[in-house]
């Protein structure tokens, strides 16, 4: 009986030690290194070429001005 109790204790201690070491909180290393690389593709094609505001359509309710009907072929 004592033999089994002893083995159980050893097993429990080993499990405890294993868990303690396994889940020790890792330290977060500060980011110090500098990386230089070509422009990554994920930031491409996201720019505004700066001209958009020139072509924003005027959004106002249309006011209709009616003219006389046209007769005959028209110029194009």
């Amino acid at each position, binding site marked *: 009986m004592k033999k089994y109790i002893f083995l159980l204790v050893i097993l429990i201690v080993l499990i405890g030690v294993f868990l303690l070491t396994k889940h020790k909180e890792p330290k977060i290393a500060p980011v110090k290194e500098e*990386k230089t690389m070509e*422009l990554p593709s994920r930031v491409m094609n996201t720019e505004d070429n700066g001209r958009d505001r020139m072509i924003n359509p005027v959004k106002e309710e249309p006011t209709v001005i009616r003219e006389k009907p*046209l007769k005959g072929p028209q110029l*194009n």
Partner: protein
Amino acid sequence: MKKATILILTCMVSIVLLVGVAVYLSSLTSEKVITERERGLIQAVNLAEAGLNQSVAVLKEKILVDLNNAVKNKKANYFQGKDSLTFLHDILPDFFPSAAAGEIRAAVTPISLNANIPDASFAATIVIRKQKYADGNDIEASSSAGSVFNFPYEFSIEATGSVPGVDKTLRFLNGKFEVVVQRNNFARFALFTNHHMSPAGERVWFTEKTRFYGPVHTNGQFSFANNPGADFGGEVSQHLQKAYFYNNGWPVQLDSDKNEPYDLPTFSQGFLRKASEINLESSITTNDLRQKVGYQSSGGSGIYIPNNGTSVTGGIYIKGSSSKHKDNATIALSTSGSNPVYTIRQNTITSADNITGSVTKTITVDYTANGGAGSTNIVSVTRNASGEITSTTNQTFQGVPDGTEHKGILIYSDDHIGCKTGDGTCTNAGVSGTVAASSQLTISSERDIVISDHIRYQEYSTSPSLNANDYTNLLGILSWGGDVIIGTSASSNLDIHAVIMAVHGAFFVDNYRYRAPSGDVNLLGGVISDTYGAFGTFSGSQQISGYGRNFIYDGRMYSEMNPPYYPTTTEFGANAQELAQDLDKMGLIWQQQ
């Protein structure tokens, strides 16, 4: 004894379970910390990246839009001798602070961020310096011809994204751009009209037979017909607020880009109404061009190539009687290898407008002769009224007829070129042929210019669409006091590769009301005219007569390229080609700190 053993065992199991739970909770806490930190890092990097991208957009807007507007009404002496960094500060002081330690540091105001990211922000700074030579010395601003000013810069952008507890800095390095300030080029449009009516005041409609791929502007108002309607691939703008719509024959004016269901033009880049009026005032006059071609008021009608006996000293000019048409010149453009050959024929007439004979000059230009100085061979053939040759001369001069400023070949006429309906029994055709690969040419007249058939560049591409982007050949057709007219002899589905300008006239099709339906005019270039000439007539969706329009803007005109001696506006404009490119083509280096 048994009870004691069970107690001990229970205690030990409890302790182990407690330790296990403690370890588990500890690991949860640490993982949460790690996750939050990683999330913070990612957020900070994304914020910094947003800062970089916003800064690039702001820089583009400041240089391509704001600076372009700010230089518009400046005089040339404003730019002359100005230091590059001082120029930026003086022209846009609200954004570019004074230079310190050889650089301008402009702070970018961050965009409003999503409120779901509390306490998150970024700070971005654009740093602008002068470009440097390989030896480290600054490249200073320069100017040429007193009207083109170059300001070369290099720039970097630093953006720091911040969330609570985490800062992350990213940089764009190695940016370069050159601001070129010069008088604005008229050839900036696939179509520009001052008044969008025919010369007779009739409305000319954009129909489904109208396709423009490039900037289109009028200082008046456009007229749209039919569904499907015209197709516009570039920016479209008009000065007035309302546009005309055909409305199935009952026209209406609307402040709208469509009139459903009858009139539905397609705008790929929008239709801006109430746009600023664009001044068509030219910085040069006919007298300037006469001077540059070497025009002499003395001497009678004829075809002249000014020279000093050994070298050409100007361009090519034609003198004629503007009140008579039988002496209107005909110009055939052809090639010899990649060099140009111009065959110009002019009838000789009496004061009663009777033909007494003709002179034909075949002018062959060789750009590579004389060690690159070029040569011009002129074969002149004179005929009598019966068409018999009465004399022939053959002369060769050094140099090419590229005007006094050597900008490109210039053919100038003080008379009409070609004949149109209404010019009597005149049968002189006008301009047609092939523009040689190595040549840049402007054909200018104080009167009408008739296009008699296809005019094509020797080198052009149809992939992905019609363009001449990688080629040199270029043609400008410029009428100062008349019209540019597609003649009755022109083929169906006519190709015209040229930038066409009628300063006080229109570009239209001769006999457009009665010419049989002839397909499209496929123009590679642009049209700048005072009024909008008709190409044909339509009824409903049916083309009754004439041509449709398929106008493709020659994108080379948006940069510094320009037909030789082509007029510029009195206003200045600024451009920086490097900033007009997509971000991935700007040569920037991305750096993470």
